[in-house]
């Protein structure tokens, strides 16, 4: 709210970040592990006087430079550009908090550029020992870059004692620092080995290919094995609410966990097969292994980002850029305090006010009619009243959602904007708390945002009222991602009646919600 919002409602800032970040994290980790691979393979080639392996090393170095130095480094700058456009408040916090960490990382990046360029252009010109030393310097600098970036990224998820002491060192060596560093280092080694396996599958020298498959698998399998406890350690370091999200509290995270697990299994099977039958290792297998690693890596990054919600920096700033400390003041009225809002009062133009509220509070994660996390799809079946009620308590129903920062009138304006942008009955601020809650309204407010009416009807087909009523007492037992319903016993009774009626021929046809 301190900054303007670059507003592309059908695309969404999150999509733009993901587009750049997915490729970057993959290549950036490869840039670290690849350095180790270059140093080790040259050492091995020279030690065993293996001309084929040395020639491979040389070709691999060129591919490595083209991928990491160009695509890797520029997408790294790209992430910085895009987060400063989409999350300027969070970016500013990270830049100011860690300015000298970023600066030190820049120095290591400079060393990387010089080292890898010298390495590439000095094959056969340098004494072997010096050339190998150059590779080790590259790897050392690349790992130090990872060390620093890891401190900053893990801080966003586990800010630790920084929230109270504001010390640079508490922030950098936060509770997630070491497990995350271990996990990322292992991922870097895995990716380097997999790229080498892919690269060597193009070689026509069968004997070299077999040797490389052995070396590659020997590098990736132990790292993959080590990544499992490292991931557990990382999970253990998460703050309690984030751990609950990963443990089943968030359906999207659970889905990502399944994807990641599948990726790891496919990868392990391919590697074991290649180790058993190195002669049958081919491009398709190598490509599939790399794709599986991409799924594994992508899931990990997705989970990390998702588990951080509702914060962009744990306990300090919500993902929509609102500082946690500002919240109480903003709940008195958001628009008058939002310097970049077109509208300062709801009454002046409720439709425009709703749009501004969406832009400043929802757009950082949601799109409107877009492909990524479309909010319209979830809300257009709801009534304004039901949605306004839900918005008021959305952070309680869903831990990963930031609380709405605004007064009742603003809540109504946002609800009106999201329920179709038409609110003929809207006559300024209204308080839903005092109104009689109708059965359908109860259903919309509590169920429709996540479940379509059809889904609820199908799931409860044949259920008795008692069963429905009992389920409403323990929703969390139906699915770990379902928050328990906190309504009064009377409300639960009415809701149970309403759900029961859904399966009767003359059932009332309420709103059509969506399935998450």
């Amino acid at each position, binding site marked *: 709210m*301190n900054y303007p919002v670059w507003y592309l409602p059908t695309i969404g800032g999150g999509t733009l970040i993901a587009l750049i970040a997915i490729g970057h994290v993959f290549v950036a980790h490869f840039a670290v592990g690849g350095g180790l691979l270059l140093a080790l393979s040259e050492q091995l080639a020279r030690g065993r006087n293996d001309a084929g392996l040395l020639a491979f090393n040389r070709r691999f170095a060129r591919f490595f430079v083209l991928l990491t130095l160009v695509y890797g480094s*520029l997408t790294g700058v790209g992430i910085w550009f895009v987060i400063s456009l989409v999350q300027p408040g969070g970016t500013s916090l990270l830049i100011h908090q860690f300015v000298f960490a970023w600066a030190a990382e820049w*120095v290591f990046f400079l060393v990387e550029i010089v080292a890898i360029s010298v390495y590439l252009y000095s094959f056969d010109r340098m004494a072997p020992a010096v050339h190998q030393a150059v590779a080790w310097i590259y790897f050392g600098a690349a790992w130090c870059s990872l060390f620093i970036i890891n401190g900053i990224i893990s801080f966003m998820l586990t800010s630790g004692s920084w929230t109270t002491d504001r010390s640079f060192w508490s922030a950098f060596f936060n509770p997630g620092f070491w497990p995350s560093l271990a996990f990322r280092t292992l991922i870097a080694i895995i990716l380097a080995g997999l790229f080498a396996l892919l690269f060597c599958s193009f070689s026509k020298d069968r004997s070299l290919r077999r040797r490389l498959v052995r070396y590659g698998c020997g590098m990736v399998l132990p790292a993959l094995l080590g990544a499992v406890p490292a991931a557990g350690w990382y999970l253990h370091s998460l703050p309690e609410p984030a751990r609950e999200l990963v443990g089943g509290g968030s359906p999207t995270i659970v889905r990502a966990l399944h994807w990641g697990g599948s990726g790891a299994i496919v990868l392990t099977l391919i590697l074991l097969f290649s180790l058993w039958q190195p002669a049958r290792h081919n491009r398709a297998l190598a490509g599939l292994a790399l794709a599986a690693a991409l799924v594994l890596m992508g899931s990990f990054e997705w989970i990390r980002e998702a588990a951080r919600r509702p914060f962009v920096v744990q306990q300090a700033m919500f993902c929509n850029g609102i500082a946690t400390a500002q919240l109480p003041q903003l709940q008195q009225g958001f628009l008058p305090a939002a310097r970049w809002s077109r509208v300062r009062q709801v009454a002046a133009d409720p439709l425009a006010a709703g749009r501004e509220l969406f832009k400043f509070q929802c757009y950082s994660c949601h799109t409107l009619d877009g492909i990524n996390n479309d909010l319209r799809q979830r809300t257009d079946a709801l009534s304004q009243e039901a949605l306004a009620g839900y918005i008021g308590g959305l952070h309680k129903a869903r831990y990963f959602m930031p609380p709405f920062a605004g007064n009742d009138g603003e809540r109504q304006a946002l609800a009106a904007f999201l329920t179709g942008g038409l609110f003929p009955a809207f006559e300024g601020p209204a308080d839903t708390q005092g109104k009689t809650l109708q059965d359908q309204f109860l259903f919309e407010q509590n169920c429709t945002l996540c479940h379509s009416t059809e889904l609820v009807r199908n799931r409860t087909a044949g259920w008795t009222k008692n069963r429905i009523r009992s389920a409403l007492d323990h929703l969390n037992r139906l699915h770990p991602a379902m928050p328990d319903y906190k309504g009064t016993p009377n409300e639960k009774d009415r809701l149970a009646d309403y759900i029961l009626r859904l399966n009767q021929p003359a059932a009332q046809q309420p709103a059509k919600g969506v399935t998450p």
Partner: protein
Amino acid sequence: MNPLIPLPDPIPVAWGYLLALLLLVFSLHLLFMNCLLGTTAVTLYLQRRSDAVANRLATELSRALPLLMAFTVNLGIAALLFLQVLYGQFFYTSSILMGSYWLAIIPLLILAYYALYWVDLRYRRLGRQRWLLLAGVLALLLAVPFLFSNNMTLMLHPQRWSGYFDQDNGTLLNLADLTLWPRYAHFIAAALAVGGLFTATLGRCYRSRAPELAAYARNLGMTLFSRLTLLQLLIGPLFLFSLPQPLRWQILGDSPLATLLLTTALALLAALLVNAFQQRVLTSLALLVPLGCCMVALRAWLRSAFLQPHFTLDQLQVVPQYSPLLVFVIVLLFGSALIGWLLYQATRAARQDM
């Protein structure tokens, strides 16, 4: 104060350290960026020549281009870092207002970088397509500083930011700014000139191995450098006169610091022109570096003068934490030593190879 200006975050050390670092890394960035842009133009020009020496020079120059790109980007990152720490509330805002263009810089740079590697690694095989590729790279490299100039001028004018209320999709440029075009021309002319000087300097490395090449590079490079630098005597005053009157008068005498910087720069420019026309490569280079630093300092002064009604650096809240600065300095010294060793080994290897 303009109500649209966001509140800045506190800084960990006194602003002077950060400004000194910004000036240092931006001067270096500018030097490499000038070499990159100008050398690309020279390499493109050489494609039109059919003589062997021109062809050889173009080959040598094209080998340097990807490296120049790498250093330009790297140093640019550092400059943007310190700029964000000192002027983040202005810079993030203007970047968002032109977000769609600003983010486009990344794909433009990726394209240019890959094209430069393509030219380098496939120089002979590319044949006539080299011309096309290099022309494309030059166009991209001209577009990127234009977007930078837009952002760097838009951030100085909070009064223009209200355009956001009618256009929030990140497509606001600062085209109506009178200073934009002369400022951009000033940068581009300098870059093309420095490309000439870089050509001459690179040629100088071949004095003993290929004297003909060295002479050709010197003649071409220094001619380009001297004439384009002379042209700055026209563009510079144009830029100066495009500035708002109070700022112009400050540079022309009212502000001792700005006037000192300008007069020093003019004295260095005069000496530089004499040496450039006499084709003295190393002396020109030795004069160009302090001239560039003066210009960068004058630019920083101009930025603070533009923002003075809204903000001065001493308004930034300092929450002191000096130990990370100390660690950075140690890393910088250690990194510089490593780079020194790497360059020494590379030079030694290249010499042995001759």
